[in-house]
C-alpha cells in the first residue's frame, strides 16, 4: 500500500506540499524569515564593506597588485603606528573603566530615588548619550577653544592660568577621554539600573538578616547578580570605543604630534586624506582579531554562567 501511494504522483505532490507546509510552520523557519530582512541589511551594510576592507588591505599603495600581509608588516615597523596602538588602548580602556564606575555609582543613586521622581532624573541623565556625538563634541570643542575657552575663562576667576586643553599631549588625551566618558556614562548607567531593578529584594533582606554590611551587600549580592550585564556592557562599550572616530576627529584631529590618534582617525588620515587606501584599511582592521578573541572569551564565560544558573 505504501509502495502504491509512493508511486502515485498526486500523493507525492501532496506529501511535498505538506512538507513545505510543515517547514513553514516551524518556529525556526518563521524566525529565520522574519530576521531575513535584517540579515540582508547586515550582509549589504556590514559584511560586504568588511570583506571589501579586507580585500583592500591586501593591495599595494597603488591598488594594482596583491601584497598579502605586506601592509601589516609595513605598519609594524612604524613608530607612529605603535603610538596609535598605545593611544587607542589607553583611550578605550581608560574610558570604559571610568564609564563603568560612573555608570555604576549613578545607577545606584538613581535606583535609590523614590520612583515618583526617578523618571525625570533618568531622562536628564541620558541627555549626553542621546545627543549626536558630533554635535556635543562641537560644544566641547568650543569649551576647549584655544582663544575663547569657556573653561579657561572660569578657571581664570579662581586664579588658575590657561590650560592647553587640546594643545599639549597629556591634556589633549585627557580631553578626548573626558568627552568620551561624558557621552558614554549614561549608557552604562541605564544598563546597570535595569540590572539593579532585576535583583530580587529578598536577597538583600536575607543578607541584612545575616548582618551583611553595605559593602558586603554590594560585593556578595549586587555584583554577582550584575556580572553578565557588566561583562556585556563593558565588551560592547570597549568595541565601540576602540572604533570611535568623531570625538577625536572633531576635538583634536589626532594632534598634537599624533598623540591622540586612534585607529579610526589614523586610518582616515592615512587612507582618505593621505590617499593610501590599502594602508588605511589595514590600520582599521588591526583590532578586529584582538577584539574578536576578547569577545569570544567574554561571551563564552557569559554562556557558561548562564547555563550554571
Amino acid at each position, binding site marked *: 500500500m505504501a509502495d502504491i501511494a509512493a508511486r502515485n504522483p498526486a500523493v507525492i505532490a501532496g506529501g511535498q506540499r505538506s512538507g513545505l507546509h510543515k517547514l513553514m510552520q516551524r518556529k525556526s523557519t518563521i524566525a529565520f524569515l522574519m530576521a531575513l530582512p535584517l540579515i540582508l541589511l547586515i550582509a549589504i551594510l556590514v559584511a560586504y564593506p568588511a570583506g571589501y576592507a579586507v580585500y583592500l588591505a591586501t593591495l599595494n599603495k597603488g591598488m594594482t597588485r596583491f601584497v598579502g600581509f605586506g601592509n601589516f608588516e609595513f605598519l609594524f615597523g612604524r613608530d607612529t603606528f605603535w603610538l596609535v596602538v598605545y593611544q587607542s588602548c589607553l583611550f578605550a580602556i581608560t574610558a570604559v573603566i571610568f564609564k563603568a564606575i560612573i555608570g555604576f555609582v549613578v545607577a545606584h543613586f538613581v535606583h535609590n530615588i523614590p520612583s515618583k521622581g526617578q523618571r525625570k532624573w533618568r531622562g536628564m541623565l541620558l541627555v549626553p548619550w542621546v545627543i549626536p556625538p558630533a554635535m556635543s563634541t562641537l560644544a566641547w570643542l568650543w569649551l576647549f577653544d584655544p582663544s*575663547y575657552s569657556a573653561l579657561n575663562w572660569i578657571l581664570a576667576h579662581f586664579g588658575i592660568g590657561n590650560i592647553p586643553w587640546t*594643545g599639549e599631549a597629556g591634556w589633549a588625551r585627557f580631553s578626548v577621554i573626558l568627552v568620551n566618558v561624558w557621552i558614554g556614562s549614561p549608557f552604562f548607567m541605564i544598563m546597570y539600573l535595569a540590572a539593579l531593578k532585576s535583583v530580587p529584594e529578598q536577597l538583600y533582606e536575607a543578607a541584612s538578616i545575616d548582618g551583611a554590611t553595605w559593602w558586603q551587600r554590594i560585593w556578595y549580592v549586587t555584583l554577582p547578580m550584575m556580572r553578565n550585564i557588566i561583562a556585556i556592557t563593558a565588551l560592547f562599550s570597549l568595541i565601540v570605543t576602540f572604533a570611535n572616530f568623531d570625538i577625536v576627529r572633531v576635538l583634536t*584631529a589626532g594632534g*598634537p604630534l599624533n598623540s591622540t590618534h586612534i585607529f579610526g582617525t589614523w586610518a582616515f588620515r592615512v587612507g582618505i586624506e593621505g590617499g593610501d587606501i590599502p594602508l588605511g584599511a589595514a590600520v582599521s582592521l588591526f583590532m578586529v582579531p584582538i577584539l574578536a578573541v576578547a569577545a569570544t572569551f567574554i561571551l563564552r564565560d557569559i554562556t557558561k554562567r548562564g547555563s550554571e544558573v
Partner: protein
Amino acid sequence: MVSTKVSRRRFVAGTAVASTAVVAAPFVRSAYAAGKLSVGFWDHWVPGANKATQELVKEWADKEKVEVTIDYITSQGNKLLLTTAAESQAKSGHDILAFSTWLPSRYADQLVPMNDVVEPLIKANGAVNGTVEYLGKVDGKWLAVPATVGSQIKGPCSRIDLLKKHAGIDIQAMYPAGAAPQADAWNLDNFLKAAEACQKGGNPFGIGLGTTSDNVDAAGAFFHAFGAMLVDAKGNITVKSDPVRQALDYYKRLMAFLPPDAPSWDDASNNKFLVSGQGSLIMNPPSAWAVAKRDAPQVAEQLWTHGFPAGPKGRFGPFLPFFWGVWNFSKNQAAAKSLITFLSQAASAEKMVIASGGYDLPSFANLTTFKVWAEEAPPKGTLYHYPNPHNHQTLSIAAAPAPHKIAEQIYTQAIQTQMVVRYAKGEAMDKTLDWAAKELEGFTRN
C-alpha cells in the same frame, strides 16, 4: 512629410544617448554636443559666491543646449574629499569635479588629459605659476585645469595699527596700494623681531602649528625660504641637511613668540585669533578679513594683506590651487571640456573673483590685475597685493618638489609642523631629523 516639434527637454533627452557614443569626439555645437552634464563644484565659503558659477554655467548651457546639473560640495568635514574618493572607487559620478590641491596627481590614471584645454588657455591668459604646473601636470600631461574658484594665496594678513605700534613697521608703505612693493626690509630677521615686539606688546602673531592646511602651508613657505626640502624631486630623502636645520632653528625662535597653544590650532583658529582683536598677523587668504568686515569692522579697517618675508633662498608665498578635472568614465567629456574652457575665460574668471569679494584667484599671469582687488575696502587697497600682481614672491606649496605620492603624505601628515613642534619643545635636533627621516622612508613605499 511629417513635421514634429521637439521640445528642448525631449531634444536633450533624445540626444543624451547619442552623446555618450561620441565621448572622445571634439566638442562642437551640434546635436551630438547636447546632452547631460553633471558638475561637482566646491561649495564656496563666501556667501553668494556660488551664484557666479551658477550664472556662468547657465549661460553656457543655454548657448550649447546642454542640460547641466550642479552640486556644490562642501569641503567641511572632508565631504569633497570623500565624494572624490567614492566616485573614483565606484567609477561613476560627476562629469566635472573640483579637485583640491593634491588630488589631480592622486587620481592621475582616472582623469582625462587636458592639454587641449590648458595650452590654449595659457596662450590666451598667460603662463601659470610653477606650483600649478607641479600639481596639475604630470609627465607632460595636464591632468586638470586650474580653477579660479577656491584657489588662494595664504600670505600674511596684518594689523596696520599693531605692527606700527609694537614693531614700528608701516606695512602699507612696504606694500602700497596700486604700486609695486617696497619690501626689501621685509625679511625673516625683521619678521622675527616684529613677532617678538608684538608678542611683548600683547598682540602676538597668530601662526598655527597644527596639522591642518593653514598651518602646513605657512610652515612650507618658511622652509622654502631656507631652501629646506625634506625630499627632493627625485624622491631622495634630504631631511638631514643644513637648510632643514636652519629652518627648524628659525622656527624654534619664532615659536617662542607665538601663542602657546599654536600646536593645536586648526584652520579656524588663526581667523578667530585675528578677528577677536588679539592677533597682529596671520597667514590666510582674505576670508578672515571678510569675516572681520561683517563681525568686527573696527578690526577689518586695520587689516592689510601682503607678501611673505624673504629668506636666504628667496621670498615664497603659499599657493593652494583648486582644479577642475574630468573623470575618464565621464559620458560627456567633450561638453565637459567646453564648459571648463568657458569658465576659464578672463571674463568668467573676473566674475568669479568679484562674487567672492576678491578671495578666488585665477592661476594665469594675465588675470591677477582685476579691479576688484584694488578697490576692495576697508581700507581701500587692502587686497591689492593679495594676487601677487608684481610677482614679488614665488608661489609655492609645502613639500614640493618631492614626487607627488610622497609630497601628499608629507603635507597631509603635517611632517613639517610636527618637526617644528618636536624640536621647539626640547627634542634634540638629530632625534627630530631621525623621526622625520623614518616617516619619510615610509612614504616612499609603492
